[in-house]
């Protein structure tokens, strides 16, 4: 009895090793890149309303994000906010009206020093080597520590079963379940295929995405040439989402 049990255990262990060896190399070497995003607010605000809305909607569609009828249940990865609430520390009196009235798309900043990951008791959220702060829903126990820790309020909680509220299911992506936290992942599933994040693609050039480690990338050049701001920089979270005003 014990003998056979031990035999089963060792067999499974060697089987796991066999399986482990069978993976291909990752599409992108995560150690080498550091993803970041620039949002050109002037350019974005010049887009017609329908196109601006498309930027938010495309994310909902491809990521199976539920649309709840009640605001308190809301789950969102990217949404429009105003200048005052996005940049409380940059908000002065007598700002030019066109700046005060800007529509500012907000999403997870993929902080270089993310407070949300440090509080997670299960390792369900962490910063990958390429700088993306991501989620492993399998591990999330729904304690919402990360939501309390994020100084930007960029995380949503599934208070209810989201499935009945997904208008159209994208079969190539998963849904979430009641009791887990979710947020923007910089479209890791698209990056792996060599595509840009979906919002960037829909933004008609007002969002720029790329590798901050590569000094020749478009994003690095834009950041070198323009004055950019980040959300609550005084907190030391080092967001990798930059805004041009």
């Amino acid at each position, binding site marked *: 009895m014990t003998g056979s049990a031990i035999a089963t255990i060792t067999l*499974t262990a060697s*089987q*796991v090793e*066999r*399986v*482990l*060896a*069978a*993976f*291909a*190399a*990752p*599409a*992108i070497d*995560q150690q080498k890149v550091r993803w970041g995003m620039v949002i050109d607010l002037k350019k974005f605000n010049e887009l017609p309303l329908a196109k601006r809305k498309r930027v938010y909607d495309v994310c909902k569609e491809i990521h199976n994000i539920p649309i709840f009828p009640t605001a308190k249940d809301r789950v969102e990865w990217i949404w429009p906010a105003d200048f005052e609430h996005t940049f409380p520390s940059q908000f002065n009196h007598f700002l030019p009206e066109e700046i005060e009235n800007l529509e500012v798309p907000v999403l997870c900043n993929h902080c270089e020093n993310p407070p949300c990951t440090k509080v997670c008791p299960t390792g369900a959220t962490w910063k*990958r080597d390429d700088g993306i702060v*991501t989620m*492993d*829903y*399998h591990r999330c126990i729904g304690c919402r520590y990360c939501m309390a820790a994020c100084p930007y309020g960029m995380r949503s909680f599934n208070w209810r079963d989201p499935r009945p509220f*997904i208008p*159209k*299911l994208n*079969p*190539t*992506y*998963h*849904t*979430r*379940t009641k009791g887990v936290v979710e947020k923007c992942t910089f479209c*890791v599933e698209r990056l*792996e295929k060599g595509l840009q994040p979906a919002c960037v693609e829909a933004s008609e050039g007002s969002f720029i995405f790329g590798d901050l480690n590569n000094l020749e990338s478009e994003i690095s050049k834009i950041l070198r040439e323009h004055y950019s701001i980040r959300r609550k920089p005084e907190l030391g979270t080092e967001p990798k989402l930059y805004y041009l005003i």
Partner: protein
Amino acid sequence: MSKTPLVAVLLIFIGFFFFPYFYSVASGQLGKPVPELEKPKGDHCIEDAKWMEENHMVLLKEWRDHVIRQGIRTYISDTYGTAYNISTYTCFECHTSKANFCDKCHDYTGVKPNCWDCHVYPELLEKYR
């Protein structure tokens, strides 16, 4: 001193302990044969079929960790050398029904995996069409 209470307690304990057995006997489920599963499409499974039968959960767990933690999206079959896209939906390309394949065996063995609370399966997709 009377031994009646002790015997009664013992009988109650035995009753509870063997309840699943009695229940199966009473409902005629004991000795039910292993269910017939739907024949999948395609020539072969990701690995040897027997290996898959015993270890598909190990494979799926390894797949999960590699995709989420390392961004590795391709698995190369050890048995057949074929490359597979790592996704739960890859399975459904051949096993076209969860109800006629996964569920049958899981129900028989009394396992309740919670994969499908989040991952998409053909029947769910049908519901959204």
